[in-house]
Every structure is written in C-alpha cells, then in structure tokens.
C-alpha cells in the first residue's frame, strides 16, 4: 500500500519536472517548482520523515518560491530558445545516472529491516536516547545534540547565505556604477 502511494506521488513529481523542462515561461516554471516541492513534502510524510517534510514545505515550497518570484520580478525575462542541440548534456547526465544505477543494484532494497542503516548507529538513537537526552522527537535529539555540530554548520551556512546576499545586493551609496 505504502509503495503504491509513494510510487504514484513520485510519478507525479517526474511529470512536474517534465513540465519544468518543457516550458519556457519562467513564471510557470516557478509555480511548477512550488508544486514539485509540495509533492516532495507529501512523499516525505509518506516516508515517515515528518520533520523533513515540514521543512521542505516551509523552505522548499515557501521560501524558495518566494525568492524565485522576487528574482523573476527583478529580471522580467522569458527563457530564450536553446541555441544548440543538448546532446552533450544528455550524454553527461545519462552517464551520471547510469553510474548511480550501477551502484544501487547492490544496495539493500526498500523496507529491509536487516539493512546496515537499521543495524548500526541508529539503534542507539532510538533505544538509549530516552535515558541520555530524553526528548520524544528523536530527530530533534539527533539534530540538536548527537549531531549538534552539523547543525551549527548548517546554521552557519544559512548565515553565510544571508551575509552573502547583503554583500551582493546592498545598494551602493554612490549613484555611478563602478562596473567595467
């Protein structure tokens, strides 16, 4: 049952991406991107990743879409017709995809409780966390405590982006542009 639901949603996502690929109206692209993010979030709920789903809905569908719309407003542009045939790009992305396909064949499949990820490291988070940290949401415990340093890095990434946008978009005090 789960497989059918998730598979159907994933198929819808592929269709959305196909739409993004085909359309040259950038506004439509951005809206399709928002739909894509919401579908992603829904699949994540089906995969029991509720925290991730919430973040994807807020960040992927919300913030990203707003940012894209803002940039689109500032650029006001329609995508030009591609000038060259995309065979090179096609070949490259096909190679990468095939490499990944090659690699995943030996991996544990969907819903395999014997897979290494369910046997090593994660069991401690699920079984001992109650004594060690004692917050019901295991994701919060791992995020903020066990792997809290990653989250510090992640917060710093967000800060870097913020300060970077300030550096790039803060208006010059002088009117004249000192661009070459």
């Amino acid at each position, binding site marked *: 049952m789960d497989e059918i639901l998730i598979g159907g949603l994933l198929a819808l996502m592929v269709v959305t991406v196909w739409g993004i690929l085909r359309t040259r109206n950038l506004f439509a692209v951005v809206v399709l991107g928002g739909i894509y993010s919401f579908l992603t979030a829904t699949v994540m709920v089906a995969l029991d990743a509720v925290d991730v789903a919430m973040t994807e809905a807020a960040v992927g569908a919300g913030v990203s879409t707003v940012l894209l719309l803002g940039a689109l407003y*500032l650029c006001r542009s329609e995508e030009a017709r591609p000038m060259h045939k995309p065979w090179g790009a096609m070949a490259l992305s096909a190679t990468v995809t095939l490499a990944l396909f090659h690699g995943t064949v030996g991996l544990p499949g969907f819903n395999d409780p014997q897979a290494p990820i369910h046997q090593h490291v994660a069991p401690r988070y699920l079984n001992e966390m109650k004594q060690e*940290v004692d917050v019901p949401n295991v994701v*919060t415990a791992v995020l903020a405590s066990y792997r809290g340093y990653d989250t*510090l890095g992640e*917060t710093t990434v967000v800060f870097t982006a913020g300060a970077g946008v*300030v550096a790039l978009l803060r208006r010059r005090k002088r009117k004249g542009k000192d661009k070459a």
Partner: protein
Amino acid sequence: MKHDLILRVIAKILIPFLLLFAVYVQFHGDFGPGGGFQAGVIIAAAVVFYALIFGLKAAHRMLPESWVESMMALGVILYAGVGVAGIVLGGNYLDYFVLDAHSTVHGQHRGIFWVEVGVATTVSGVMLKIFYMFADRGHLDRQDPAASQESAEL
C-alpha cells in the same frame, strides 16, 4: 493593496496567531515535528505578510533592517556560544551534559533549548534580510520617482 480594509483587518488578526504558531513549532519541536528552522521560517513569513499588506516602509518601522542584520549574527553567536559554554564548564565543545550541575538530562534539555533558539533567530533574520534585500532592489529598478524616494528614506 495598502488601502484594502478587509485585508488590513484580517492581517491584524492573523499575524499574532502566525507568531504564536511559530512559538508553538519552536518549543513543541521536542515532542512533535518542528524546531528552530521551521519556526524561523514562519516568523519570517509573518513579517513578510505584514510587509505585503502594510507596505515595506511599515515593515521596516516594525522591524528595522539593522535589527534583522543583528539577528542573523546573534543566532550563530548564541549557538556557537553554547558550545563555548560547554568548554568553560569543563566539558568538550557543544557538551550539553555539563550545562546543568545536577542532572545530565537537564543539561541536554537546556542545551537543545538554547541551540534551537539560536537557529530560529538566525533563520528568521536571514530569511527576512534576503526578502528586504530583494524588495529594496525592486524599488530602485522600477525607476518610479515616488518609489525611489521612498526607498531612499528607508
């Protein structure tokens, strides 16, 4: 849109609830899905909503840009500071066990609490700052004398 009465009234009612929801997501993150990132984004969304209805100028008055810029920095400082506090209290970096003298579990709770506050502060600050930056750029681009004067005042 600035003069639409219905929108303004509804916004006035909604925004406190949005902020309340953000606080819920922030502190309920220990028990259900949620946490600093999501709460930060919701806080930013509430202010963006305010800016859309009442205008950028009003939003700037409510939450000046310099505050927003400080928020970006303060969150990271708080987070990294919790780590340094771990060292000062005799543990390793980001060691929450030592944050409470009596119980390691309480120390963990305390650490997670402050860390999440730091995350929410930075995320909301950054999201807002990025929004302000893009919005300001638009004023300049439009080359509308009234708008550019308005943005000059900001």
